[in-house]
């Protein structure tokens, strides 16, 4: 029971860093050292309370934050391989989703040619496919297990920023689409007429296709979330 108070305290100090293997290793190391320090104090005759206070007095949250400096060593090539794989999947899906756009020509899509969009995703898929194949089938162990240090603290804020930028982009596209497609109708007070299902589709599509760009924030999200997966730790270290 008594040991738990120290464990809980250290747990609290590291509460922000649950996802990081390196942080958890540091926590284990610090806790084992503090436990021994505390039991030494108690053996010397200190009361539990005093021993506890003296044990934890130098390690506080800001000390922990400085020790976890945001630089993580990861298996960089494996990480990039997975990222390329994710990008490939997203592009393939986007390619498939834009196939119907090929038949909607010119005026239906206010700003982009559906054919071109489809071709872009097709080419991207091809490039990513080749890149992924080259990476995934690498034989050289040393290259596969290559490590690098990345500054996680400067990457993570971009997860939110990219979503925000994307949100603004979508809003701008929506507003522009509305203005161009229905601007004159709205201006002159004419009612907007939808003459049938195809026309309905034609009016909705320009609003939907900019959403394909969601693959960018999704990819960014993925890039941030899989960092922990490729961390190098004392246990899994491979050369």
């Amino acid at each position, binding site marked *: 029971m008594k040991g738990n108070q*120290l464990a809980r305290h250290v747990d609290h100090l590291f509460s922000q860093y649950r996802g990081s293997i390196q942080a958890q290793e540091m926590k*284990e*190391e610090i806790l084992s*050292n503090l436990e*021994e320090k505390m039991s030494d104090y108690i053996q010397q005759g200190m009361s539990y309370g005093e021993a506890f206070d003296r044990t934890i007095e*130098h390690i506080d949250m800001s000390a922990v934050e400085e*020790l976890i400096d945001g630089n993580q060593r990861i298996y960089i090539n494996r990480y990039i391989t997975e990222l390329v794989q994710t990008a490939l999947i997203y592009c393939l899906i986007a390619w498939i989703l834009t196939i119907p756009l090929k038949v909607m020509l010119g005026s239906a899509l206010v700003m982009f040619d559906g054919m071109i969009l489809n071709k872009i995703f097709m080419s991207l898929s091809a490039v990513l496919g080749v890149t992924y194949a080259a990476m995934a089938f690498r034989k050289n162990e040393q290259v596969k297990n290559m490590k690098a240090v990345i500054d996680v603290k400067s990457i993570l804020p971009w997860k939110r920023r990219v979503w925000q930028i994307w949100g603004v982009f979508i809003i701008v596209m929506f507003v522009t689409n509305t203005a161009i497609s229905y601007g004159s109708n709205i201006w002159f007070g004419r009612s907007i007429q939808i003459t049938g299902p195809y026309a309905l589709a034609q009016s909705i599509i320009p609003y939907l296709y900019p959403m394909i760009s969601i693959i960018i924030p999704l990819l960014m999200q993925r890039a941030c979330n899989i960092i922990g997966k490729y961390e190098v730790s004392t246990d899994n270290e491979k050369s």
Partner: protein
Amino acid sequence: MDDQHINSDLIRGNIDTIILGVLMNEDNYGYSIIKEIYRKSGDVFELKEPTLYSSLRRLEAQYWVESYWGEQTQGGRRKYYRITTLGREIYDNNFKEWQVAKQIIDRLIVSGDEEREL
């Protein structure tokens, strides 16, 4: 040694070398390194954890020491540190540099008062 005259900053400035020195004799782990330094100092210098761990990380990042997990104790496994060949070279080099610096500073810091000359 007079407790009041200890300038921790001066000691901390050399902490990497001091820890390497501890590890030159045998592998060691966090709390035990603190105890050893305390003992070596004549029971006057208590190395604080943040200084210890940031030093160990620095040493490890430059491959002057390597770490490995030891036995399970209360609170988790112990992390041991072993000095590398490169670390031994660095220690020897830093030790010599300190000897030289110590001599020079000793000479420079005297004010001409004979009592203070060493």
